[in-house]
């Protein structure tokens, strides 16, 4: 037992002896990762898909003030404001905008639009969409308008029906009272726009915000790249040492396990130290409080296993590669590629379906998931177990590769 504990202790000691080198390398990689993360966040938040659609409103030349007022009121309604911008313009400019694609639709408002609504003439407004290349946004706007028109039609039909009933049955003050009541009822229904919209958030980054998503993939990328600076610790041991350990009946997988524990402890301590520094710093700089994520005990444990999982993969690559330099090359290439397929750079839901399917088999997908669980304090047993299974697979794979090599010699 003593030899196992001593071996574990020595692996931890060797890892901590490399601390200055690891800190320097990690800082360099962190700068690289922050840059990638910043670009990714910019790409997602500034994408055209988040722009509002511009709708041209063409008012009659001698239009009444009620119509302008009605449109400015309409454009200020929260749910409309979030989706489209009404731009009052001339008919010619509106058509030009429709042709060159800067305008999604044109609303042609007829003369006396509001008065006609009041007196029941109901001259409809014309909505013109581009002849070709109707986008999702244009269709969304058409749906919005159709549902609005249906509401108005239903309200009008209701009011006129009650008016007719009151007139037919000669109910005194019936028309005034019922119209007051129905106006209030229909307005309260129609103005509550949330009735039309069932909130169903569809995000490329799952239940994480874009920033959190890139923090997760950034942490995983940072850990994977840090494997390069740990190559001295995780590289293949010379055959003589492996042979000697075997003679002392120390299984090689135990050596691998201890090596990973050593490196994991170093990075876990580094991250915990950085976290504690931020906790302390918020006393002096309260603004940190807004960005600091408070982790629970499960998340701390999961963080340890996340680092452990990543370095199991790194060790596997180094044991598989013939030399340290080849290992570095494979690690860099594969970690970048795997992270891309797993949606670490562009969320996987935006990648082709075939790539998404491949991603399901890659450990990096689950590293990102576990990291997401950690920073939102929502680690599930399933994600945890998958990561543990990958770690076991990599350690056994590395031991198997070492055994094969020993038998070939």
């Amino acid at each position, binding site marked *: 037992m*003593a*030899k196992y504990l*001593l*071996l574990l202790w*020595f692996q931890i*000691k*060797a890892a901590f*002896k*490399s601390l200055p080198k690891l800190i320097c390398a990690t800082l360099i990689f962190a700068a690289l990762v922050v840059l990638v993360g910043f670009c990714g966040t910019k790409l997602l938040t500034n994408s055209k898909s988040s722009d509002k659609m511009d709708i041209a409103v063409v008012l009659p030349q001698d239009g009444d003030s009620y119509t302008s007022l009605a449109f400015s009121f309409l454009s200020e309604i929260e749910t409309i404001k979030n989706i489209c911008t009404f731009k009052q313009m001339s008919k010619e400019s509106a058509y030009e905008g429709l042709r060159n694609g800067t305008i999604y639709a044109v609303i042609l408002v007829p003369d006396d639009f509001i008065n006609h609504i009041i007196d029941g003439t109901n001259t409809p407004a014309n909505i013109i969409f581009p002849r070709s290349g109707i986008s999702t946004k244009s269709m969304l706007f058409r749906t919005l308008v159709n549902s609005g028109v249906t509401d108005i039609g239903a309200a009008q039909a209701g009011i006129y029906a009650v008016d007719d009933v009151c007139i037919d049955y000669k109910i005194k003050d019936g028309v005034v009272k019922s119209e007051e009541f129905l106006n209030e009822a229909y307005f309260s229904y129609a103005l509550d726009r949330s009735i039309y919209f069932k909130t169903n958030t569809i995000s490329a980054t799952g239940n994480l915000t874009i920033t959190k998503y890139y923090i997760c993939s950034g942490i995983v990328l940072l850990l994977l790249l840090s494997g390069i600076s740990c190559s*001295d*610790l995780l590289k293949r041991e*010379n*055959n*003589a*040492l492996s*042979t*000697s*350990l*075997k*003679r*002392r*009946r120390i299984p090689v997988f135990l050596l691998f396990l201890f090596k990973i524990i050593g490196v994991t402890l170093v990075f876990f301590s580094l991250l915990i130290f950085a976290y504690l520094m931020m906790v302390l710093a918020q006393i002096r700089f309260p603004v940190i409080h807004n960005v600091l994520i408070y982790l629970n005990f499960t998340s701390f444990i999961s963080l340890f296993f996340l680092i452990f999982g990543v370095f199991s993969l790194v060790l596997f690559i180094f044991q598989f590669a013939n030399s340290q330099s080849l290992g570095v090359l494979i690690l860099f290439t594969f970690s970048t590629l795997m992270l891309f397929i797993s949606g670490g750079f562009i969320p996987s839901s935006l990648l082709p379906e075939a790539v998404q399917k491949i991603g399901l088999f890659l450990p990096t997908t689950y590293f990102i998931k576990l990291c997401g669980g950690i920073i939102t304090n929502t680690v599930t047993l399933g994600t945890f177990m998958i990561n543990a299974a990958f770690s076991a697979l990599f350690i056994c794979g590395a031991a198997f590769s070492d055994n094969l090599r020993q038998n*070939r010699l």
Partner: protein
Amino acid sequence: MIQVTNICKNYGKNHILKGASFSAKKGEYIAIVGANGCGKSTLLGILSGSKKSTSGNILYDGKDAMKNQKLFSDYVGYVPQDNPLMDKLSVLDNLRFWYCESARDLNEDLKTGVPARFGLDSYKNYPVEKLSGGMRKRLSIACALAKNPPILILDEPGASLDIICKEDIKYYLKTYIKNGGTVIITSHEESELDFCTRMYLLQNGILTELLDKPVGQKLIERMIAFHG
């Protein structure tokens, strides 16, 4: 002391060892010579328990080591061609690791034992990666002898070492056999062969004793003759 009978080793269709047999008593210095790649290291690996033979028997003091693997680590101190050391750790830590199962006291040995004899006490806090090749080899031998084994197996210990280091190791090996230890060594160095008690030539998988213990030009001629 050690009785090796009919050791065979095959890698697929390659027959590396074809029934190697020999024996050695206390205080003997057995040299095994042969061309590069002839299977010397494989034979030493089998004798030290780090490789498995395809067939054959090894007895240490009459006890079958094939049936009890622990005998290998109890009886044999093995110094492979490369140094079995943990580079990131200090000399002292490496020694500690090999001494942890030993009845010997490391602190005592650092004053009077093999580590002290090799001058390792002055380097005890040095990381192994900063040691010279000669000091590493000395440390490897000290580690192999941590459990005070009666047999020391060395695989080309003098390879790429300077003359002073070679002489130092040679001088120690003489002391070791004088104290009743048995040495089995593979080497191409004349200085490591000239005081052997018996010499074997391994060629084409066959181990043959060279009764006249030739060294230098004579040995080369003999090897060419066997090859022819």
